[in-house]
């Protein structure tokens, strides 16, 4: 199960390149993102550009701010096969995944990270994806898949997902793009 709420940018207002003040499931920590329709055109990623196979109708973009940051705090399950007992026994792994991209040869970018925290809020694990560079995209507008997986350390109780879009150089539009963001937990037989 994907623990990230609205990781596909499909919910809430948006649809154009105009920044929105709120995004369902996310706290807008800095700047203002845009939730752009793949059908918008105008140089933005389209349904035929590199991106998730099942991409829905919209993706996240950085809006018009030099740095736009979205935060989502996730409480880990209390019980069940990926609950606290399993986490503390070292029997849960996580996978962070997302499609991250940008525009043509520009170096605007999107970065997705997850920080697992213990009950006091101390970081106990971290995975960082992206940003992908223009070279990674071979100079083409689009999004590339990035994933990381690791053990959920014992004592982890929450996860903070941070999505940051950065604009490089001049211009107005922050053309870091992101879509299909997910954080999943998986029970394992034991420590690796």
């Amino acid at each position, binding site marked *: 199960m994907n623990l990230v709420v609205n990781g596909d940018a499909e919910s809430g207002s948006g649809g154009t390149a105009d920044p929105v003040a709120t995004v369902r499931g996310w706290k807008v920590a800095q700047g203002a993102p845009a939730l752009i329709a793949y059908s918008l055109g105008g140089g933005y990623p389209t349904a035929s550009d590199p991106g998730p196979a099942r991409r829905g109708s919209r993706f996240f973009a950085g809006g018009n701010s030099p740095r736009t940051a979205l935060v989502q705090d996730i409480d880990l399950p209390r019980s069940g096969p990926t609950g606290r007992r399993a986490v503390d026994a070292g029997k849960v792994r996580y996978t962070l995944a997302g499609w991250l991209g940008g525009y043509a040869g520009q170096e605007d970018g999107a970065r997705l990270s997850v920080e697992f925290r213990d009950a006091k809020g101390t970081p106990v694990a971290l995975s960082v994806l992206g940003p992908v560079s223009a070279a990674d995209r071979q100079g083409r507008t689009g999004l590339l898949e990035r994933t990381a997986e690791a*053990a959920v350390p014992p004592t982890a109780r929450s996860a903070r997902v941070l999505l940051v879009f950065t604009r490089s150089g001049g211009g107005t539009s922050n053309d870091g793009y992101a879509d299909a963001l997910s954080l999943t937990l998986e029970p394992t037989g034991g420590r690796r």
Partner: protein
Amino acid sequence: MTVNRRDLLKSAAAAGALSLAWPLAPGLTPAQAREAAENLGAEYDRAPFTLGVASGDPQPHSVVLWTRLAPEPLAAEQRLPEVVEVEWVVAKDARLRRVVARGKAPASATLGHSVHVPVSGLAPGRHYWYAFKALGKTSRVGRTKTAPRGRVSKVTFAAANCQAFHDGYYAAHRGIAREDVDFVVHLGDYIYEHGQVGGVPEKHVRDHDGPEILTLADYRKRHALYKGDKSLREAHAAHPWFLTWDDHEVVNDYSGTGGGAPFMRRRAAAYQAWFEHMPHRDSFGGSALPDPEIHRVRRWGDLLELAVLDLRSYRSAQNLPDGTILGAEQKAWLKKTVDRAPDAWHVWANSIMLSQLRGRPGGSYMFTDQWDGFLAERKEVLGHVHKSGLEDLVVITGDWHSAFVDDVRTDFDEPESPLVGTEFTAHSVTSGAYSAEWNAANGPLMGKANPHLKYFEGNRYGYDVYEVTPERFSAHMRVIGDRRDPRSPVSTLTTFHVDRGKAGSYEDEDTKNSPAQYRRDAA
């Protein structure tokens, strides 16, 4: 020991073997690289706690403990289980018998097998000792101290900055470890990102482990290399530290914003590695790793309020009319901190020079990477200090590899503008300064060009110790004799005082004839 090491370096150089031994030649396995490093003077603690222990961000009831498991400190990946359980213990005595807290923390490969333990429930204003245990081994014992509460009659602390590994041994940290201080502030340039410099042993005592660092693995190795100087580990183990950073923790003169994707990826790697190697308590505010939040305000009883500034993460490019060195949020926070300031000494831990610095009369600013590249914001912040009526402001600064004492004025181009504080820029731990000839020629020129500049000394290396009482703030400039000697003795070059309630500094009568390349009172 020094002689042996130098002899070893010289003989290795003579034999043409230096490139195989040190610099740590590419192609060596991590174990071979470590052995080569150790043969030539680096020393690590016993595995897996090779990088030592540390504590930081002391508060009245809490302090953060740090260690990192790195059996092979110069390996990109540690041969360890993905998650290792680390036990920690805090006691009232050095033998760890009177235990007051203990627990376990997971060391994850995703964070370089580092642990950061915020220990709470401690008593204010007292020493504690601590250690870690993992994989059947026990770390060295570290000592820390909590901040006091209420009325405090004295606080003593040290400030260190700029410790280029190749430029010398950390005799300054050896000195800090032996100082009777309550805490240490590191003002940045803890590591340097560039590649090997060569010239060992004629010009440099040692070298970096490889080319310019770019990836998380690179930055981890570089931090581990720097911690191979035992004096640095000793200083960490002796006192709690407050930390900020300057540019070289990432790359020379960078601005934290506005870079393209390859730079932002590099910055994230550098920030993560910094966190993994420092006793840093993340603020748990609006952000998260890999963007640690460094700026914070801490109090040492009723005597001192310390504001730690981050002058890198949020800055814009230099020399813009609307440029920022603090970023909008941190600036608002700093101004609010000024507004709410208690009646106490106010110290800003400021990585890079606040005061204006022209190279010669009528000349341009020497470096606009410092606050001179952010004129409007400096004026706004210092104007706010003046308007708010804040008194007893002392700014402690690094970066310059030389010592300066400046009057802080609201408008540095107007010598009669309000005097709102004093800035002490400390000598570097090792990072190379200008030549003695340059200093001799330019000290007087800088003095003439900057009416607020009171003192300049650039021929020495060391650190500052600040001794603070309700009546007086004294800055003791500690200097070492020779960067090439890891055990070089420490002496006090001179002392400047600031009296409470009276802006401006003055030099101690007993040391005002000490060597310097500029001294306003003597000019």
